[in-house]
């Protein structure tokens, strides 16, 4: 049985057999084009979408942890949605990567939370309870901050408060292990997967999405091989329940709730396009020639975002530059 929240805010229990979790579409009169939706995923996890990148929410007896904070334009609405899921304190924010549509709400949402440190520490440090902790790979902090005297791209209140350099950062909260797993040079140089082990839900950030081609930002250290490695890491972690379906659920950076098979088809697509571009590079084709060859024709109707990162052109460009950096 699962709980879900409907328009009216009422909590409804939905039978699971054969059913897909029902809905919550919350109306926001001021921004009707940006309705938030809240979907139960599995275990302690929920997914909020409609405020930029997807936001994962873990609730439990100890409090609330979230993964990413959206683009910041709907932080009040996001907090209101979280409050409908739990009235416990927001203690942790984990950022999957730097992009503003995933970290834009850091500053405002962090302020609504609290850091609860252990034993005598809280009592001795007056500001230790000021806002939730923000966990991310060190490169996220590097991208958001700047050396003293230089204007940083993001305000200090939005920066990660706790970073790690390699491998993974472990956390145990709400009776489950949470692994924040660094994926080098994937969509950017600061991507992490966040795996909630008891709930069996993995939050992928922008290394996996169902709405467009991969958002590989070469300027920010992203590569196609790192993206493939990250997708393969998801496949290693995920375990389907029955015949490649269910089991571990994956929350993508953008789009719908997925399982291993959905990631598999996406991984295959990225590898196949990489193979084609690699062959073209070997033939000495220029970037323009590669773009004109329609190497993504079989996937464009599904994944071409038409503009910016996520478009077929930008994807081909990122793959080409990843494979032949000297030919930018």
């Amino acid at each position, binding site marked *: 049985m699962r709980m879900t929240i409907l328009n009216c805010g009422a909590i409804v229990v939905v039978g699971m057999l054969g059913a897909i979790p*029902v809905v919550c579409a919350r109306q926001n009169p001021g921004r009707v084009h940006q309705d938030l939706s809240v979907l139960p995923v599995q275990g302690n996890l929920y997914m909020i979408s409609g405020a930029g990148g997807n936001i994962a929410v873990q609730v439990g007896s100890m409090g609330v942890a979230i993964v990413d904070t959206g683009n910041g334009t709907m932080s009040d609405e996001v907090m209101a949605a979280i409050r409908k899921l739990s009235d416990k304190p927001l203690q942790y924010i984990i950022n999957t990567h730097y992009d503003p549509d995933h970290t834009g709400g850091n500053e405002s949402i962090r302020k609504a939370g609290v850091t609860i440190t252990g034993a005598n520490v809280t009592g001795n440090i007056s500001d230790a309870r000021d806002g939730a902790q923000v966990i991310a790979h060190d490169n996220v902090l590097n991208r958001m901050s700047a050396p003293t005297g230089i204007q940083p791209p993001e305000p200090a209140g939005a920066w990660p408060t706790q970073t790690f350099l390699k491998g993974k950062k472990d956390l145990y909260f709400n009776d489950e292990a949470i692994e924040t797993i660094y994926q080098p040079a994937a969509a950017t140089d600061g991507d992490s997967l966040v795996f909630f082990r008891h709930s069996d839900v993995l939050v992928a950030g922008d290394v996996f999405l169902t709405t467009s081609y991969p958002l590989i930002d070469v300027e920010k250290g992203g590569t196609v091989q790192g993206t493939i490695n990250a997708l393969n890491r998801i496949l290693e972690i995920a375990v389907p329940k029955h015949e490649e379906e269910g089991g571990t659920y994956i929350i993508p950076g953008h789009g719908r709730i997925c399982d291993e098979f959905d990631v598999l088809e996406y991984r295959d697509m990225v590898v196949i396009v990489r193979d084609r571009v690699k*062959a073209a590079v070997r033939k000495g084709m220029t970037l323009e020639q590669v773009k004109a060859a329609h*190497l993504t024709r079989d996937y464009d109707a599904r994944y071409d975002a038409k503009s910016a990162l996520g478009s077929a052109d930008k994807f081909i460009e990122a793959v080409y530059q990843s494979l032949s950096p000297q030919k930018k």
Partner: protein
Amino acid sequence: MRTTGLLLVAMLIGVSGFAQSAGAIVPSPGIDLSGNWAPAVHEDQPERGPGPELVDFLGLPITEGARQFALSWDASRLTLPEHQCRVHVVSYIYRGPLNLRIWEEKDPQSQRLIAIRQYISTYEQWRTIWMDDRPHPPENAPHTFMGFSTGKWEGDILTVYTTHIKQGWIRRNGLPQSDKAVLTEHYMRHGTYLTHVAAINDPVYLTEPLIKTQTFRLQVQAGQNWLYPCDPVVEVDRAADDVPNYLPGENPFLHEFADKYHIPLDAALGGAETMYPEYQTKLKNAAKK
């Protein structure tokens, strides 16, 4: 007369009220499809048994993108562990060698029909067709191989609408079906025969709806539904980023089907045009030139 009319109205209201009260008999609005059904594999047998030929896309309304996807597809991809236990999507499975068990689920108090359920023996697939007017899930809900189905009776025909279907294939020689596809089905029972009509609309890989029909026969023997345990293993030691595929223009089987049956390659490569009788005229005219 007026009094009589009012009385008649009052009686009708009373009957209606009685019909909705607990304990009343609520007949099913349609006919009962319950039973064990087996497919009569009397059409497209090669596709339903051994499988379709490679690069046989004839008569399918596919897009250029679907064609490129399928020409890139290498059957060795099915040896990848994560692909080994993939199953047919709801829009394809009824062409498989399946036994199909159908039963009704009714509200225990009112006996109203809540759902029509199916067990499809190939791949142990369970399917629910909701008959209680519930809405389909939001766009961001998970997709499954069976999708999310709602049904309604249109006379004696059960019409079913299915969304949230995972990516699959419209033919298991690599022709894809996207996760944006929706399926409309009609179930028609004629005694011990069941006709199943399926129309697939896929905005990604089809230019027109793909419509297929299947016939099932009622089985009187029990125990005709089998299990399908699947345990993937590493069959070929590959690098993690090795996904078998053919580069554009390098599919070695491109001409195999066309040459074997002496048909033009253009026809073998399919497209909506190849579905219609006029295409034969076009081919004959081309041959004359």
